[in-house]
């Protein structure tokens, strides 16, 4: 038990550096993915057929590509066409581009769960587009979108570990550093797992709670 604790305390520098960067990757890419995903989602539900097509095309390409491939392309292939970026920036871009597709899908399916009759009734009583959107559709869609959106972000948090395979120092890379210091890797991995459980746990609890709280609404 003592040796197990010492794995953490003796290497606190690596653990803190790793997890701080994991959180950084999560926050920056998360915000960017929400922005890009919302734009794509808006394109997918827009009345303009070409925009819908672009959204659909993006989602079906990215959703069928492994995240590791997106990373590999940015790190190894992009510099060959003169798009040089450091590993950290590549990780931000890869996570954003990949997660945006899932954000877009979640938004679209959320909006689609609002019955058409709701909006038709609103238009029939003379509400404008903005009124329909902000007073009728979005409040209802919000309830169905938020819980799965937390899942999407949760998946992204776990996906940040892929960056470890591409020279980014984050929680997934802690094990490599421990092995260089010839520390017990099993203990190290258990500590990394505990770290992730601490980060992921509250998100899962929040998601379950919101799901239950808002379920009665329809």
């Amino acid at each position, binding site marked *: 038990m003592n040796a197990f604790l010492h794995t953490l305390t003796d290497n606190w520098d690596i653990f803190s550096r790793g997890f701080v960067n994991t959180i950084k990757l999560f926050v920056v890419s998360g915000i960017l993915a929400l922005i890009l995903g919302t734009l794509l989602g808006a394109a997918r*539900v827009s*009345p303009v057929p*070409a925009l819908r097509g672009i959204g659909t095309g993006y989602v079906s390409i990215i959703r069928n590509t*492994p995240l590791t*491939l997106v990373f590999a392309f940015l790190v190894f292939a992009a510099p*060959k066409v003169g798009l040089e970026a450091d590993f950290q920036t590549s990780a931000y871009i890869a996570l954003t581009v990949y997660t945006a597709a899932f954000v877009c899908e979640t938004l679209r399916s959320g909006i689609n769960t609002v019955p058409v009759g709701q909006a038709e009734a609103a238009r029939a009583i003379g509400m404008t587009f903005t009124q329909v959107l902000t007073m009728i559709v979005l409040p209802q869609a919000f309830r169905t979108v938020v819980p799965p959106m937390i899942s999407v972000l949760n998946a992204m948090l776990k996906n940040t*570990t892929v960056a470890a395979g591409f020279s980014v120092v984050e929680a997934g890379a802690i094990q490599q550093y421990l092995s260089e210091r010839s520390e017990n*890797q099993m203990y190290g991995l258990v500590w990394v797992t505990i770290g*992730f459980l601490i980060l992921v746990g509250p998100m899962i609890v929040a998601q379950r709670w919101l799901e239950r709280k808002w379920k009665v609404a329809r």
Partner: protein
Amino acid sequence: MEGRPVSSVLYDVPGPRARRRNLILSVLAVAAVVAAIAWVVYRFWQTGQFESLKWQQFQYTAIQEQLADGLLNTVKAAATGAVLALLFGGFLAGLRMTGIRAIEAPATFVVELFRAIPLLILIFFFYYGPLTYGLHIPNFWALVIGLTLYNGAVISEILRSGIASLPRGQSEAGLAIGLDRGQLFWHILLPQAVRAMLPSIISQLVVLLKDTALGFIITYPELLYVAKQMGSRLSFDLPYVPSYLVVAAVYIGMCSLLSWFANWLSKRGARRRAR
């Protein structure tokens, strides 16, 4: 849905003015995308990505065989992982329906745990963990075990919600004719849940197939690993871009096919239910 004028939640069926505006916006959007693609292609051309030297190696049989081996390794890991994940998922779902708290609680814990750990860390556990104790698990099995545990946990959740969606009469009728809980699960609930949930299960298998690419990080010689090898050949002027484009096409092709199958199944299911 596509093509025909439809009333959506967000907007009414477009009239003549809206149609004209949509057409203009369509043209602008297409122009923007074409311009972006043209810029990428120009960039590729400018940096010599289309030079024949960079693509030459794909003509050699040895290279083609190497690519085929990578594909085979990817499919092998995905297929083994899929079979084991389905078995493990079914097993966990069964445990969680035993009605015995002492069994259900640990099973639930296992499901939650494997879903919360990043898959790569799970794979590391089986690849690097045993090294501490002088043991060695081949990278193929480390990858497959990781895929099995994570996807098995997700599939058990899918099966459970499938079973929950069945009419209660199914369980009641089963118990009424004297089946025990095991028989009820295997003969009545599971077959129906699998049928209802087949599209979700296949979507999860697409995720599993994509996640085999994590094998690259523990040097399992799958497609992505082969692509890196091909890309790093100096004698072909470091053809990273061609190699990754080829491999991306293979991944997108395989996954799209599976996704399309899942979609087809769910549409067919919806039609059947409607009848």
